[in-house]
């Protein structure tokens, strides 16, 4: 049975079938990888570039980055503190979900964009304290609407920077490339 199948695959039609199957698998994988690189659907098409252009600091809306592990996504109360003083909020279609959320008391369910897997323990505070700017990892927010990942957050990306920062300091290098620093 298996021998007959192999014989059939060896003839020209069979080779074409194998080629098509390989192409299908490859394109499916490529599509899957490209999906992970696209920013997800958000409840509001939040324009980062507008807010950055007004001179609002990253830490104003994401203050957790300087204090602890998670940078945090601002609550709608924080959005509303500014937006209820802006006339455009009443008329803007883009802001309708925010107005709706504040009036109904239902939270806006933002979808996190920059994520690491569960087995990675990331701490924003340490990175901000070490003098890393937000854009080093998150890209230039003055150019995007919804946050996008400028790169894949994989271990190579982390370690490249960790090794560079440690430089010739052996003690620092030991700490920064130790498995237990991020994985536990």
């Amino acid at each position, binding site marked *: 049975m298996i021998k007959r199948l192999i014989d059939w695959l060896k003839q020209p039609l069979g080779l074409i079938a194998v080629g098509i199957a390989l192409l299908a698998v490859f394109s499916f994988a490529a599509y899957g990888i490209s999906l992970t690189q696209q920013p997800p659907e958000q409840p509001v098409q939040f324009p980062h570039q507008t807010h950055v252009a007004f001179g609002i600091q990253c830490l104003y809306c994401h203050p957790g980055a300087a204090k602890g592990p998670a940078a945090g996504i601002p609550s709608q109360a924080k959005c509303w503190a500014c937006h209820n003083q802006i006339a455009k909020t009443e008329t803007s279609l883009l802001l309708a979900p925010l107005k709706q959320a504040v009036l109904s008391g239902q939270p806006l369910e933002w979808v996190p964009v920059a994520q690491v*897997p569960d087995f990675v323990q990331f701490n924003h505070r340490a990175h901000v304290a070490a003098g890393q700017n937000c854009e080093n990892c998150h890209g230039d927010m003055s150019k995007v609407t919804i946050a996008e990942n400028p790169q894949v957050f994989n271990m190579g990306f982390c370690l490249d920077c960790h090794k560079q920062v440690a430089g010739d300091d052996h003690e620092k290098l030991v700490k920064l490339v130790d498995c237990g620093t991020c994985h536990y």
Partner: protein
Amino acid sequence: MIRPEEIKMSADESGKWGMVIDQDICTGCQACVAACAMENNISFVGEKDSGYGRSMHWIRIERFWEGEYPEVKMTPNQPMLCQQCGSATCEPVCPAFATVHSQAEQLNLQVYNRCVGTRYCANNCPYQVRSFNWRDYERPEPLSNQLNPDVTVRRRGVMEKCTFCIQRIHKAQDKAKSEGREVLDGEFTTACAQACPANAITFGRVDDPESLVSQLAKKRGHGIKHLEELGTLPNVTYFKGG
């Protein structure tokens, strides 16, 4: 492969984090076992798999029989957890380098994302303190809300073991660094030590002669390190019969 001369060399180095367990005041109440399970997201294995010897604990209370049958005597309660060996037998056997020695914290790490589940480390551990995730065990409804976000939730096919609450070590180090100081002795402790109502477990820096663990070890004297003759250089010291 660890050669004998390396063992001798590392024997001169003291560990970093260590534990002192006083078996005389341990009541065997299992509070440490419960606290550890809560802190470290340990799965609830259930009756059936426990029957197969697949129960998961990072710390357990051991008791043995001494003597022949009618004249048996129970030994004191012995909390047994990963001894965080300086020269661990679990480390050289891992084919995936998932159990590695932390140079920074001097602990035996288990890197869950590297682990492929050969279970070689657990079979090679003389203390039998590693547990394997034989299944994805379900957490019934209210319990699923109490997972510790600082600890990875392990999935099926991954080995796990006591980490000396490395998440608490990192938290304390991070807090100390943000305040521009060193980590103070007793500033934080492991979940088992925190939960112990008799204060039988003490955790701290063994390389600091001023720390509470070093002081206790000096005061009590004659501490036992389990299976020390194997050259594993454990970092947990037991006291009994003081």
